[in-house]
């Protein structure tokens, strides 16, 4: 499956590339980069998406550039990252389309 960035969607270049087959009119994409205290991208971090009640919904591993991506639904979510550089949480209120959000980790 190709993973070219979707042309013309306005996604900043640091977000994870989307498969060309994904229809962003229908998907609620939550994507971004995990960074350390020093602002460096953290690859190999485990990022979990927790629902509004705090329950696990999905987990991905960040790319070498620290990128992660979820296909969720509109609503409030929490991103929780675990890494060798420490852990961190970020809350996000997502709507349909691409939702860009960063997560910082510290030990």
């Amino acid at each position, binding site marked *: 499956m190709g993973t070219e960035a979707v042309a013309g969607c306005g996604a900043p270049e640091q977000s994870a590339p989307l*498969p060309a*087959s*994904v*229809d962003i009119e*229908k*998907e*609620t994409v939550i994507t971004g980069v995990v960074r350390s205290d020093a602002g460096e991208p953290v690859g*190999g971090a*485990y990022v*979990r*998406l927790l*629902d509004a*009640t705090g*329950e*696990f*919904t*999905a*987990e*991905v*591993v960040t790319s070498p550039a620290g990128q992660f*991506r*979820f*296909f*969720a*639904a509109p609503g409030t979510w929490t991103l929780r990252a*675990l*890494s*060798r550089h420490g852990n961190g949480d970020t809350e996000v209120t997502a709507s349909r389309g691409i939702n860009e959000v960063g997560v910082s980790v510290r030990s």
Partner: protein
Amino acid sequence: MSRDSVLVSADWAEKNLGSAGTVFVEVDEDTTAYDGGHIPGAIKLDWKSDLQDPIRRDFVNKQQFEALLAGRGVGNDDTVILYGGNNNWFAAYAYWYFKLYGHENVKLLDGGRKKWELDNRPLVTDVVSRPATSYQAKEQDLSIRAFRDEVVGAIGAKNLVDVRSPDEYAGRLLAPAHLPQEQAQRPGHVPTALSVPWSKAANEDGTFKSDAELTTLYGDAGLDGSKATIAYCRIGERSSHTWFVLRELLGHSDVKNYDGSWTEYGSLVGVPVAVGDEPGQA
């Protein structure tokens, strides 16, 4: 059932890399993970291309499974230690699959790939090859595999455990949120199924919770220990994780995994479906 007979710790694994008669096997959804770095000596099984029939929606047959393991150098007497990403979803699936074809000595690495990585344990990119064996599988043990008619018949009669996330159970999502949501099947769950997400059985680092915590979890959810249980998810991998917990860790005697799971059930014509957060009526 003792935990030690079905589970090994990362410490044990690191001390036993390369032990004779022990084969480490990585099984992932992201099958490129292995190539980027794997446990020293571990071989790879691709849950899709190795374990699924290439044409029909079913598993490889007994002869194909025998040829697969023989070619990869796994013997009948070897102890197979399975691990993988996604909190061991696909490793648990492979565990169930090895049991389905009668492999005796198979264990899961507690915490899988995640704990191994977070602990900074060694990963290598060496190409691993093992001398071929002659492998004999048994006929499928259908006492651990449920098919769709049995699931419909279990509504209101057996324990049905839906192990997907609460939003998938209720019908608000159609797939785990690392996958695109546009899917063919109807949203919802099998009526009367309890919602016990697989993730409640695991700690954040991917290891299994204690037996006491697990017993409380399923007791509080309303699982009736005197009845048979069928676990399902979307494609049968997360429910393998719960099947492992109920049968292998907690020792429940009659537990089946419904590998057709929601991608099959939610596409069936005429079967009952419940939506929303409540189990619904039989």
